């Protein structure tokens, strides 16, 4: 039994990790942090560079939760990657970060969070970046 966290190197992503750790401690579950990107553009804001992933790993280490960090770049939509990871791990909960999007941004890029919220096979916990102090 696992909790899956959809992580992006942005405030809302970090908030999601923090929340995921809290939930994992509370429920005594394992944590699976997923950073996914399609990988077909030269740059992707959702793709976490190695330093960011290392920071996340360090944070997980400190928390004492049994956790795994997975980075998936294989041409699949991040929402699908998160839901697939949740399905294979038989996750009880998915934690994602959400933020405001401009209508144009949503039109062009779609919304990963919205897809996960609507389509995931387990409960989804959505956290906002505001909860992050910095």
């Amino acid at each position, binding site marked *: 039994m696992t909790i899956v966290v959809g992580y992006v190197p942005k405030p809302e992503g970090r908030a999601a990790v923090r929340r995921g750790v809290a939930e994992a401690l509370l429920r005594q579950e394992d944590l699976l942090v997923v950073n996914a990107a399609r990988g077909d*553009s030269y740059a992707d804001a959702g793709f976490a560079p190695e330093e960011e992933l290392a920071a996340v790993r360090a944070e997980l280490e400190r928390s004492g939760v049994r956790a795994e960090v997975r980075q998936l*770049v294989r041409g699949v939509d991040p929402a699908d990657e998160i839901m697939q990871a949740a399905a294979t791990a038989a996750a009880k909960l998915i934690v994602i970060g959400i933020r405001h999007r401009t209508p144009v941004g949503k039109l062009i890029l779609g919304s990963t969070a919205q897809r996960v919220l609507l389509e995931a096979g387990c409960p989804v916990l959505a956290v906002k970046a505001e909860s992050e102090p910095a």
Partner: protein
Amino acid sequence: MGGLSELVGGFYTAVTPINLLYALIGVLLGTAIGVLPGIGPAMAIALLLPLTYGIDDPVSAFIMFAGIYYGGMYGGSTTSILLNTPGESASIVTAIEGNKMAKRGRAAQALATAAIGSFIAGTIGTLLVALLAPGIARLAVQLGSPDYFAVMVLAFVAVTSILGASRVRGFASLLIGLTIGLVGIDLGVSGQQRLTFGIPQLADGIDVIVVAVGLFAVGEALWVAAHLRRQTASLISTGRVRMERADWARSWKPWLRGTALGFPFGAVPAGGAELPTFLSYVTEKKLSKHPEEFGHGAIEGVAGPEATNNASAAGGLVPLLTLGLPTTATAAVLLAAFQQYGIQPGPRLLENEPKLVWGLLASLLIGNAILLVLNLPLAPMWAKLLHIPRPYLYAGILFFACLGAYAVNASTVDLILLFLIGVVGFVMRRYGLPVVPAIIGVILGPRAEVQMRRALQISDGDLSGLFNTTFSVTVYAVIAVLVLWPLVNRFVVRPRRQRRAPDGAERWPAADALPGEPAQDGERVWSVPEARTGDDATVDAPAARPLDSASLPDEPDPRQQEKP
């Protein structure tokens, strides 16, 4: 100083509202295209050349090119800094320190020093062109056919052997270009059809634009399509682009030194922008008060090479305008653009088309200034283009490529040729053949042939007619040195060098520092997708370096190059 007053006259030609608008459009389009990895200014000009067909006044068209040119150069440095993927080979060196700076949160300063350095170097360089071009043109008028032929052979040899990592591949690429250049009716003497295979549309030859767009754009698009790897990188975000006092203090000397280094390299036929940018980097590293910062984001390492590559680009205009001799891919495409407008670059260009030449130089200065004003604040926005999925990007590029090729003659045969040449371009990339020598061969080959035949006609077919002047003999001597250099390097210089600790590995970004698949060996350097660009041969040299750091490839050692 006569050139300067004429340059002022050039401003009268260039500064009209409509021309400024063209310059603006050129800068915007050039930057947008130049930002994309693998696409440099040469390809940007080739792709956008057809856009200017609707413009009647060649001065306006060239003003737009000037914008595209500088825009493309600047776009390349933006990607180098923010993504560590040089958009064109001249900005490979920029990526070394620039990306490190960006990673340390100083992306804004890196972009600023690159932009201002480019502006200063471009301005000084263009002024130098204005000063030097008339004098060189006067000298060039006295050159005869054998001299021209010799200089062209020098350009061939230099482009293929100095710049590339492998001479054999360079020459193979040159021969492909020369062969494509042969297609069509022999206009010189016999009127014979050559390599037309009975296809009437080939009798006029293959348009240079079709070749350039095919090799660069279609070849690159096919290459990207064939290697559509699932890989991406994180773009480093920037705040407002501005520099602090300390940044200015550390940047201005590298800017000026870079200019001094880049211009002469650009102005000689064997120059190019790659060697001087590398030299500039090494120089700045040596002279810096903060040598320990090099490798971790030293601002001098961005300021110097960026100024150098722009100065060298400006220097490249000297042989182009005075001799009609392109020394880089970009200059070659510019030459094709000249020919498109029925203008023959050469020693008489300044006499026959003063309005155009001075207008062009003035517009280069204007384009440069617009670039500085516009791109300094907009750089982060351009980088956003990199978020577009590659399939869309390259579909757009292919669309432009087809449009351009079709616009030349409104002929479907050209479209078929475009894709055939695109496949050639793809295969060349696959087997590591640099593209630039091919382009130079296509453009310069027929011109060299004319000069050679003229020389031989004068001497009544006697071969000595090709080297009966002091000038041509001197040039052939230089060529001999270029050709023999690798042998000297291998048997005399390298054994000595090997005893010293190789420091070459530090100087270039290791292949694995680039977000591409690290090349496995010298054979496959071109499989480093982001380090390889479509437009300049040398790009594979730096990429090859870290693989072969102990025994440097047969490229001349820059420190030894400094002496002559």
